């Protein structure tokens, strides 16, 4: 338990394996993820980044045939303990998906969805405030403040992605998992998103899967390189991109594999 007493470690994983109908996609990973920082997962397509990311909020539970083993602790607490309710865990560990998936509801209702479910607002004014703050934090407020009643699905792709981030922030999670959040965005929307992530890391533990080396280098403090279900190398981002210890990492970063 020594590593957990250290204040800035959020997650500790020991020998984590993920398999789909018996086929192993993540093959025994040990990793520690720091709080209030950005950790990037990189690696070739199909190497298990998304599968591993979904371990942290137990989204794998919703996939039929998917099994997770190993010891995964958040603030020292086993998040796969038999008595632990994944629904409560997910209120603390938010997730943003590759394709923006706003609900077919108004912008306001999209953001208010989580707080309403978890009873976070005492009154309408409370809820208004949560929605306002979340949209503001997500950098979307100025663009939508006059049309909160419009459908969330009517926004542009980049706006939708910030909307779902606002939606995730609204339940005040401790962690935000992002699975290729910028892959459907243009460079300008991506830049905005990166600025946002930069700000969010002051308060949240952020884990981001990305296919863009440049993006990982720009926004993350630590980078983990995965290959075929293994964690090949995990280090400070500067280290990984300037002086990787492993040949496989170097090859991937230089675009020689993958």
């Amino acid at each position, binding site marked *: 338990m020594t590593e957990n007493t250290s204040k800035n470690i959020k997650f500790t994983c020991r020998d984590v394996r993920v398999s789909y109908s018996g086929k192993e996609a993540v093959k025994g990973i040990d990793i520690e993820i720091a709080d209030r920082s950005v950790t990037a997962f990189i690696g070739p397509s199909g190497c298990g980044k998304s599968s591993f990311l979904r371990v942290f*909020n137990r*989204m794998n539970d*919703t996939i039929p045939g998917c099994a997770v083993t190993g010891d995964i602790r958040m603030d020292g607490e086993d998040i796969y303990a038999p008595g632990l309710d994944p*629904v*409560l*865990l*997910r*209120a*603390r560990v*938010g*997730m943003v*998906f590759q*394709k923006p*998936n*706003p*609900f*077919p*509801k108004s912008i306001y209702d999209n953001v208010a*969805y*989580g707080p309403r*479910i*978890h009873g976070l607002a005492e009154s309408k004014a409370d809820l208004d405030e949560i929605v306002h703050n979340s949209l503001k934090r997500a950098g979307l407020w100025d663009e939508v403040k006059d049309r909160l009643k419009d459908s969330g*699905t009517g926004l542009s792709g980049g706006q939708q992605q910030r909307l*779902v981030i606002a*939606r*995730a922030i609204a*339940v005040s999670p401790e962690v935000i998992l992002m699975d290729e959040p910028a892959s459907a965005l243009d460079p300008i929307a991506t830049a905005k998103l990166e600025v946002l992530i930069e700000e969010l890391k002051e308060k949240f533990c952020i884990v981001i899967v990305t296919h863009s080396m440049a993006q990982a280098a720009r926004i993350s403090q630590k980078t983990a390189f995965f290959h075929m279900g293994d964690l090949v190398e995990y280090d400070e981002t500067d280290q990984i991109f300037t002086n990787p210890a492993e040949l496989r990492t170097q090859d991937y970063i230089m675009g020689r594999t993958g």
Partner: protein
Amino acid sequence: MPPRSLLTGRTFMEFSIPAYCALIAAMGVLAYMSAKRRAMHVAAGTVTNEISRSFHSRPNFHGVFAAGLVTLLAFGVMIGGVIAGLPGWLVIALIVVLAGLAFAYTRTTIRANFKARNVVEFAIKSGLVICSTIAVLTTIGIVLSLLFESLRFFKDVPVLDFLTGLQWSPQTALREDQAGQSGAFGAVPVFAGTFLVMLVAISIAAPTGLMIAMYLSEYASKRTRSIVKPAIEILAGVPTVVYGYFALLTVGPTIRSFAESLGASVPTQSAIAAGSVMGVMIIPFISSLSDDVINAVPQSLRDGSYALGATRSETMIKVVFGGALPGIIGALLLAVSRAIGETMIVVMAAGRAANLTANPFEAVTTVTVQIVALLTGDTEFDTAKTLSAFALGLVLFVITLILNVIALIIVRRYRERYD
């Protein structure tokens, strides 16, 4: 008296048509093979790299062109010959000669620049257009006849009286020789009855169907779903007359004896007996269609909801159901229009008295029941009584048409949303 075959003693009509057809088919096959072969031969001689001078259509198009021309011509000759009552040998001779000429003509078309492919494509397209035109024309014809007969009725009975009159008794009107007098042909009770039965049916089918749909799409395992869904769809395949006697012989008496045990008196034929059985019948419409639209809600929306810490039922009610709502409304409207047009169950179990009532425990009559009652038995088709059936039919048609159009528009909008 048509001429008879010397060999079989049967008329040429009876004996000949299959034989002609066989002959025509054989000629078609021959024409196809021969033309294709010839085309391959010719094509082999015109190998060139210039597109403008190369062989335009592939050999089998030439084959199809020849076969099509030959069989179409022969078929026309056959029909003309049979209608004109020509003797069989003459018909066959004409077929062979004319088809032979057609074949000879197709020979001359087998050359590099003849666009047999375009001709064949055009012929196929025309055939398809003709078939769909026939279907559309039939529909238009039915609607027009409905319209004209109704207009004849409305000459006797003003439209307004028909649509707003509160008394419906076409039989009495006839007996007292008062056909056409206002009052006897007030359709309001009939439509009210239809509406009441439909309401009973929907209030049973909608909740049941929706819950089945939610269970099937969100909770049931793949295996359960693959068994339960078709099993429920069987309900829609039961002949409606079976539902009818089920309503009349089982449900109606059960309701009556239950009411009697409570000290109330309910007739065997009632809106509730017919409506509840009809409700069971339309459950699969609602459950299957709703299940489809619920399934069309993208998984990513569910994931988004789960990732926010929502439970399965919260996700289903607040996200999935909301997302599928337009489609579900469409499904409900289709079920309603089905319920309104349904005939057999109400004929058997709803009664015939044109009561204007909102009480489902009374006997009511519906549009379809009245149409059946008006047109069965010995009737002349020019009295106001029988013509009123067309007016009822027309209004019913307009209502279901509007419902269907609305439902389709809603469903289409909904589809676009996730495409």
